[in-house]
């Protein structure tokens, strides 16, 4: 029985529990002639929740823990002798799992029965060939020890799955029955479902928080690993970025940070004024009809995948800047440049700035405008002297959010800015950014043991610290702004 079918059984029990609980509540209320504390459906929900939640939690935990325990038990059966030179136990275990999976398929396709399988031995029969027939390809012939391990993997997994199915259904029935017995008119069934909804919501927010926490910790550990292999002072203060995969590389972050900030700066230089002016126009001048059309239309820009922007930079903007500006002025001959990436990224950021600023400007109370117009101010005076100062903190927040987006942007800079780590001021030269280098250090066949690959995590963490800082700053400013009218 697969987990899917098991889940469906639990759901069927849940639905049954709902109707039984509801019915019992109504019947008892009628017999005792008292009013129900909650609506009849609340009693049904309570029974249904008690049926479903513990059973599904148990199932989830089992699905999560079973492979771990199984792996442990079986991997101790594999003798060191079958582990190939320079390989890892985990690779052998992967074979074990695939063989066990293949055996399941063999049985399923009717080619073999269980007795045949248990008497089958790796040294006498062509296991590899038979598995290939059912679509499980193995890299080499199967070692007897590995085959035995696969057999025991399979049998332990089978028992465990059976146990799981019994346990889950038993829990569903047991808790459901107990809850059903508890149903009486005085039971506070409404509170049960309210509590459940609250814990569901708390649980959902925990998922987001824990994921962030997990990402940061994994980055942190790999970064610490990196700094054991490579001096931190070199990383932070060296101005040379020159990774050599044979060792002895210079991994200074400064040229990359410079590129990142230069490109982001160019992007913001384009996006902030245009975005702000769009926001002011939409919020203060445009009519309702135009605004309801123009705002979503501009937001489409934010929905274009960044790889498409990258193509635009690579094929259109880059060559245009090279042929019409860089070469005539003698400032460079590369089609990828800071300006290319910056301009295209700026276009991408326009809706971030305009949409958020528009919301902020709209949030300035009409009373402020009335007050200003009432004193004889013109529309532009009102915007300049009353609306903008009042909205400024929120606008700064919008700009900082756009900036953190720019710093983390990858595809546009990969395709538009080039790959040369360089500390320079010429915006028509190729430069590179932190994100581009993370990609290039991790592309290809890599193992996470050398400083050249681990540096990607240190770069990632650096980037994360910058964007997190900007986000916190933005949130702080936006929050402070909110207090102004309260």
């Amino acid at each position, binding site marked *: 029985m697969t987990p899917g079918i098991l889940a469906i059984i639990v759901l069927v029990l849940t639905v049954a529990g709902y109707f039984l609980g509801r019915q019992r509540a109504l019947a008892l209320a009628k017999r005792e002639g008292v009013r129900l504390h909650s609506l009849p459906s609340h009693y049904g929900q309570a029974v249904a929740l008690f049926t479903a939640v513990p059973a599904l939690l148990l199932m989830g935990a089992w699905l999560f823990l079973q492979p771990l325990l199984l792996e442990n038990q079986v991997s101790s059966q594999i003798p060191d002798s079958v582990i190939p030179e320079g390989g890892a136990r985990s690779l052998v275990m992967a074979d074990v799992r695939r063989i066990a999976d293949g055996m399941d398929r063999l049985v399923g396709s009717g080619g073999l029965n269980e007795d045949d399988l248990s008497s089958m031995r790796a040294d006498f029969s062509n296991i590899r060939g038979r598995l290939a027939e059912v679509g499980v390809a193995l890299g080499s012939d199967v070692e007897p020890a590995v085959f035995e391990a696969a057999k025991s993997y399979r049998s332990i997994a089978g028992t465990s799955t059976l146990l799981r199915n019994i346990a889950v259904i038993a829990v569903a029935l047991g808790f459901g029955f107990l809850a059903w017995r508890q149903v009486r008119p005085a039971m506070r069934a409404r509170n049960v479902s309210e509590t459940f909804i609250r814990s569901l919501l708390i649980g959902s927010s925990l998922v987001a928080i824990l994921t962030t926490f997990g990402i940061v910790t994994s980055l942190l550990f790999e970064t610490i690993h990196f700094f054991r292999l490579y001096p931190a002072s070199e990383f932070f203060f060296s101005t040379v970025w020159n990774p050599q995969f044979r060792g002895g590389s210079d991994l200074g972050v400064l040229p990359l940070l410079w590129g990142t900030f230069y490109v982001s700066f160019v992007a913001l230089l384009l996006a902030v004024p245009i975005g702000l002016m769009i926001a002011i126009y939409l919020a203060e001048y445009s009519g309702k009809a135009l605004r309801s059309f123009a705002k979503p239309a501009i937001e489409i820009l934010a929905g274009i995948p960044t790889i498409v922007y990258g193509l635009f930079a690579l094929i259109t903007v880059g060559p245009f800047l090279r042929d019409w500006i860089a070469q005539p002025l003698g400032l460079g001959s590369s089609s990828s440049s800071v300006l290319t990436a910056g301009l295209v990224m700026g276009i991408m950021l326009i809706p971030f700035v305009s949409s958020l600023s528009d919301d902020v400007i709209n949030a300035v109370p009409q009373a*402020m*405008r009335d*007050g*200003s117009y*009432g*004193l*004889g*101010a013109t529309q532009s005076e009102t915007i300049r*002297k009353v609306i903008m100062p*009042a909205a400024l903190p929120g606008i700064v927040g919008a700009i900082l959010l756009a900036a953190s987006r720019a710093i983390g942007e990858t595809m546009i800079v990969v395709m538009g800015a080039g790959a040369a780590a360089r500390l320079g001021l010429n915006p028509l030269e190729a430069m590179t950014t932190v994100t581009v280098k993370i990609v290039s250090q991790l592309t290809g066949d890599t193992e996470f043991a050398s400083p050249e690959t681990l540096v990607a995590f240190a770069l990632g963490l650096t980037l994360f610290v910058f964007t997190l800082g900007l986000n916190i700053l933005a949130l702080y400013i936006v929050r402070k702004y909110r207090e102004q009218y309260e």
Partner: protein
Amino acid sequence: MNMLTDAAVEEKLQSASKPGVSKMVGKDVTVHYGEKQALFGVNLEVPEKQVMALIGPSGCGKSTFLRCLNRMNDTIDICRVGGSIMLDGEDIYDPRIDVVELRARVGMVFQKPNPFPKSIYENIAYGPRIHGLASKKSEFDEVVETSLQKAGLFNEVKDRLHEPGTGLSGGQQQRLCIARAIAVSPEVILMDEPCSALDPIATAKVEELIDELRENYTIVIVTHSMQQAARVSQRTAMFHLGNLVEEGPTDKMFTNPDDKRTQDYITGRFG
């Protein structure tokens, strides 16, 4: 001799209850909000240097009429104003009239205190700055001080002129808004229920202030409080369903109104 004096007194009383010189005159004023008509040909004269109260049940058009007097309705897209409104004999809806200048002459104080999120000083200096009424810092200082003094707020805030105006209490904020309006030296001040968000003590202070301001300014005030209308105004206009029901000296309106609807509204029988 005595008789003559009495007659003179009588005449004086008579003239006080007459409209006097009209500062603003509305003729057949109609207002449409989109399809909906809010005012049906209102004829009303606002006497100079007096307080005129506009009363009437909610939705009767009194605020709409008030907002016509300095063209604040222009900021509402769907609003159309018909008829004519004269300020010192000039039609303020004439295309040649500059609305910026008009609003400098006809200031407005709103229902909810709406100080800008700037310092107290900057709140007052805002109007003179946009109209170029002062240029040197000393001139601004003087405008700020006199405006605050006229609004009876100076002593309360003189030590914190550079703190945000939003930090004041509700009543102080409303007097700050009045001071802000005074700072551009308007001729008329329109007040749209200026005390509806204030407690009784702050209300008393604002009413006292309105009474003092009458000396220099023409004031039109919309109010829902009958007592307030009786306390601060010399003339009262009663609106109902977009029409002007009647207009007259406040004493007469409150003691012996011509129209039954006024009588009923004032005594609380409807509204």
